[in-house]
C-alpha cells in the first residue's frame, strides 16, 4: 500500500494540469504559472472546469440525449493519481506513438473543428488499424484531445524557441543548430533538456479531466453511426438485445449495413473541404482511399458480438442481420445533386434531341452515387455545403433478419388416380398439399416452394422407390433437425393419408437441389400400363412389340399440353417394351427406360397420329387406348437413404 501511495504521489507531482485555455494563450509564462495554483486533488476545481467547458462549447444541443451526455461527461472524469488515470495516459501515449507518427496533424484539428467524430477522423487519415476503432468512444475523444494538445504544446515550444533565438541572434551559430535539433527530439529528451536550460519552454502534460470539447456533437460525417458504435447506452446494449432475440436458429451470422446516402455525400464534402484547406496534402485522387463507415462499424461490432453472444461471423453466412440506418434530418441532402444533374440533362437534350437519354428519376442510392461520381468538385462546392452542415439529431436504425433458404428433400409415392401432384383450382387436395401441410410451421418459415423431379398426371400412380422432390423453405427460423425429427415428420404425413407416402426426408444443400432440378434430361423411367385395342389380338400379336429395341419417337407436342407448351417435334427414346397378354382386347405393357419427358399416354393412343410411332400403329390396323398408367421407377437415386 505504501509503495502504491508513493508512486501515485510522484506521478501527481509530475502531472501538471493545464488550464481551461492553454492553447489560446500566447505568453508561455501565464500557462506555466496558472497550473500551479490549481491542484488536481481538489474536487471543486474540477467540477467548475466541467461546467465552464460545457457552456462554452455547447453550440449544438441534442435534446434527446441530454441526460446521457451528462452521464457521459461525469463518467469521463478521472480522479488524478488513480490507476485508471495512469492507464488512460499510458494508453493514449502508446496509441499516439504507434499510429500517429506520420499523420498530418492539421487535418485532425480541422476535422475536429467541424464536428467530425474520432473514428471518422481516422477514416480520413486512412488508418486501417482495427484495434483503434475498437477503443471506447471515451478513450478516442481523449486521444484526439491528447494529440491536439501535444501538438499545440510542440508548436508553442517552437514559437518560444524562435523567440529565444531572436533574442540570442547575436550569439553563437552552433547554439542555434543545437536548438533546431532538439525541436525534433522526443518529449522525454526535451524534459531532460529543460532541466539543463532553465529558460526553456515548459512542456505541459495532457490532463484527461480537461476536455476542450465535450461529446455533445453529432458527427457531421457518419451521422453518429460510427460515433456510437460501441457506446453501451446509446447503441450497443440495445443492439445486442436485438441480435440476441432474433428468434432464428443459425450456424453463423453476417451483417449487412445500409448507410444513408447523406453520409456518403458528406464524406465527399469533407474531402473537398480538406483539399481546399490543404491543397498540398490532399487531391481528388486521394479521396478514394478511405475506410468505409460500414467497415468501421463491422470492425467494432464483430469482436463484441463474438465476445458477448458467441456468434461466429462468416462473410457469406446463410443468416444475415440487415441494419438499415436512416437519418431524417439529412434525407434531402442529395437534392442539390439531382438538380445539377437535371440542369446538365436539359442542355444535353437540346444538343442531342434525337437520341433517347436514360432519365435517372429515382432517388435510389445507386443513381445518386452515379450522379455523385459525375459531379465535379466545382459543381459540388457551388451547390452543396462544404464543409457539411452541423447536425442536431442522430441516425435511427432498423435491424431485421433473414435466413437463406434450406432445402428439405425426400421421395414420395402416390397410390391413387384422383390426386394431382400440384394444387389446381378444381381440386381441394394434392400431393404437394399433403406433404407441405405442416412444413411451414415446423420450420417457422415465410413461404415454401415445392419442386419435384418431373411429374405424373392426376390419374397416374407413382410406385416403386418414389419420385424425388425437395421443398425450398424460405426464411426459416428453425433449421436444426435430428433424424428422429424427420422420422416423426414422415410418420405424421404418412399416418394422415393412404393416398401417398413420403420417405427419406432430410435436409440437403442448395447445390444438391440441382441434382433433382437438372436430372430432367438424363433420368429414365419405367412405366406399366393397361392397354385396350379396337382389334382383337392373339398373344402372338404382342411379339411385334416385345421384339422392338431402342424405339425412336417423334412426338409433336401433345394437344393435351399444347396450351402450355410450345409447338414442336420432340425426339424421345424408349429402350424396350414388355407386353403381357390379358384378353383379346386388353394387354399389359411395361415400358422400360423411357427417356425423361416422353409422353407415354400419347405413345399409346397416338394423339391423332401426332406421335409416331405409336402402339396402335406398331400393332398395325388398330386403335389403342391407355386405361391405366403407373410410374414404376424414377431412375434417380437421390436423396440417399437416411442413415
Amino acid at each position, binding site marked *: 500500500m505504501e509503495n502504491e501511495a508513493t508512486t501515485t504521489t510522484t506521478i501527481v507531482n509530475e502531472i501538471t494540469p493545464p488550464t481551461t485555455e492553454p492553447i489560446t494563450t500566447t505568453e508561455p509564462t501565464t500557462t506555466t504559472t496558472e497550473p500551479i495554483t490549481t491542484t488536481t486533488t481538489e474536487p471543486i476545481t474540477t467540477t467548475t472546469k466541467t461546467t465552464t467547458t460545457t457552456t462554452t462549447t455547447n453550440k449544438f444541443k441534442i435534446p434527446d440525449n441530454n441526460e446521457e451526455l451528462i452521464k457521459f461527461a461525469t463518467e469521463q472524469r478521472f480522479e488524478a493519481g488513480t490507476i485508471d488515470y495512469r492507464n488512460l495516459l499510458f494508453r493514449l501515449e502508446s496509441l499516439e506513438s504507434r499510429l500517429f507518427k506520420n499523420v498530418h496533424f492539421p487535418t485532425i484539428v480541422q476535422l475536429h473543428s467541424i464536428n467530425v467524430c474520432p473514428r471518422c477522423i481516422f477514416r480520413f487519415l486512412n488508418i486501417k488499424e482495427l484495434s483503434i476503432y475498437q477503443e471506447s468512444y471515451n478513450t478516442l475523444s481523449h486521444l484526439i484531445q491528447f494529440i491536439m494538445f501535444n501538438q499545440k504544446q510542440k508548436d508553442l515550444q517552437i514559437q518560444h524557441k524562435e523567440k529565444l533565438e531572436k533574442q540570442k541572434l547575436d550569439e553563437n551559430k552552433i547554439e542555434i543548430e543545437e536548438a533546431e535539433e532538439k525541436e525534433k527530439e522526443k518529449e522525454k529528451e526535451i524534459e531532460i533538456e529543460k532541466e539543463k536550460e532553465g529558460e526553456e519552454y515548459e512542456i505541459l502534460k495532457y490532463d484527461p479531466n480537461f476536455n476542450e470539447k465535450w461529446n455533445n456533437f453529432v458527427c457531421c460525417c457518419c451521422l453518429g453511426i460510427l460515433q456510437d458504435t460501441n457506446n453501451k447506452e446509446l447503441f450497443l446494449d440495445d443492439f445486442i438485445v436485438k441480435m440476441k432475440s432474433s428468434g432464428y436458429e443459425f450456424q453463423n451470422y453476417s451483417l449487412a449495413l445500409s448507410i444513408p446516402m447523406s453520409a456518403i455525400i458528406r464524406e465527399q464534402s469533407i474531402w473537398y473541404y480538406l483539399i481546399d484547406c490543404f491543397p498540398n496534402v490532399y487531391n481528388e485522387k486521394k479521396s478514394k482511399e478511405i475506410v468505409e463507415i460500414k467497415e468501421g462499424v463491422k470492425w467494432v461490432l464483430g469482436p463484441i458480438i463474438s465476445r458477448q453472444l458467441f456468434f461466429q461471423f462468416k462473410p457469406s453466412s446463410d443468416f444475415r442481420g440487415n441494419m438499415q440506418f436512416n437519418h431524417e434530418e439529412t434525407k434531402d441532402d442529395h437534392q442539390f445533386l439531382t438538380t445539377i444533374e437535371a440542369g446538365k440533362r436539359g442542355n444535353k437534350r437540346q444538343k442531342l434531341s434525337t437520341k433517347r437519354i436514360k432519365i435517372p428519376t429515382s432517388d435510389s442510392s445507386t443513381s445518386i452515387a452515379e450522379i455523385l461520381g459525375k459531379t465535379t468538385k466545382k459543381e459540388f462546392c457551388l451547390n452543396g455545403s462544404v464543409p457539411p452542415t452541423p447536425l442536431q439529431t442522430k441516425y435511427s436504425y432498423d435491424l431485421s433478419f433473414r435466413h437463406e433458404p434450406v432445402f428439405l428433400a425426400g421421395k414420395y409415392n402416390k397410390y*391413387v388416380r384422383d390426386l394431382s401432384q400440384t394444387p389446381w383450382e378444381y381440386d381441394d387436395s394434392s400431393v404437394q398439399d399433403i406433404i407441405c401441410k405442416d412444413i411451414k410451421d415446423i420450420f417457422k418459415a415465410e413461404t415454401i416452394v415445392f419442386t419435384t423431379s418431373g411429374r405424373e398426371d392426376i390419374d397416374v400412380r407413382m410406385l416403386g422407390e418414389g419420385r424425388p422432390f425437395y421443398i425450398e423453405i424460405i426464411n426459416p427460423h428453425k433449421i436444426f433437425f435430428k433424424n428422429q425429427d424427420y422420422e416423426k415428420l414422415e410418420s405424421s404425413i404418412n399416418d394422415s393419408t393412404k393416398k401417398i407416402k413420403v420417405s427419406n426426408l432430410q435436409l440437403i444443400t442448395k447445390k444438391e437441389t440441382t441434382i433433382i432440378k437438372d436430372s430432367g434430361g438424363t433420368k429414365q423411367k419405367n412405366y406399366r400400363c393397361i392397354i385396350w385395342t*379396337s382389334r382383337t389380338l392373339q398373344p402372338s400379336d404382342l411379339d411385334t412389340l416385345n421384339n422392338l429395341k431402342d424405339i425412336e419417337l417423334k412426338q409433336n407436342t401433345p*394437344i*393435351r399440353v*399444347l396450351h402450355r407448351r410450345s409447338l414442336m417435334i420432340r425426339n424421345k427414346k424408349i429402350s424396350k417394351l414388355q407386353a403381357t397378354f390379358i384378353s383379346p382386347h386388353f394387354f399389359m405393357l411395361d415400358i422400360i427406360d423411357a427417356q425423361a419427358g416422353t409422353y407415354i399416354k400419347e405413345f399409346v393412343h397416338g394423339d391423332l*397420329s401426332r406421335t409416331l410411332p405409336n402402339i396402335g400403329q406398331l400393332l398395325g390396323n388398330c386403335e389403342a387406348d391407355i386405361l391405366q398408367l403407373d410410374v414404376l421407377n424414377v431412375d434417380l437415386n437421390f436423396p440417399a437413404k437416411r442413415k
Partner: protein
Amino acid sequence: MRTLIERYYTQYYFIDTTSTDANITEDQYVNQHTNDLAVIGVAPSHPVLQQEISKIEFRENAVNNEVSGVRKTGGFKLQSNTILCVITCSNGKEYFLRSCLKGKLLEINKELINNPSLLKTNHATSGYLAIIEPMIKDKFMENPGLIKFEEYHTLRNIPIQKGPVFLKDNTNGED
C-alpha cells in the same frame, strides 16, 4: 380412337346453313379439348366422304403458318368462315373447308397433303384438318354456327355410336 375423343373432347358441329339441297350438307366437326383448344375436321354428313378425293390444297398462309413459344405468337388469325383448304374430288367437284371458329391457327394436318385419302378413312381422328386456339373458350356455344353433339345427330338423322366405356380405377389396391 373414339374412346380418346370421347374422353378428352366435347364434340360440336359447325352446320352448313347455306345448303339448298338437304342431301348435300357441308358440315364440319369442332372438338373442344378439356384445355380449350379445338380440333376441327369434316363431319360424317359431309358429302366429301362419299367421293373419291384427288387433292387437298391448303391456303398459302395456312401452309406457312408458324407459331412460336408457349404463347403461340404469329399464328394466322381466323374468322369462323375463313377458308382453310380446298378439296378437289376425282369428279372435279370442289369443297371448301372452313375454320369454323374465330381464333388463331396453331397447326394444320400436313399429312393430308401427302395422303388425301386419310381424310376419308380417319376423318374423326388422324384425318383432322387443323388445331385452333379459339377466341371464345368459356361459353363455347357462343361461337356462331355451332350445335351440340346430340342435336347434330338428330338433325342429320345419324345414329349415335359410342366406344367402350372403361371404369375408372380409384382403388388403392393393386390390380
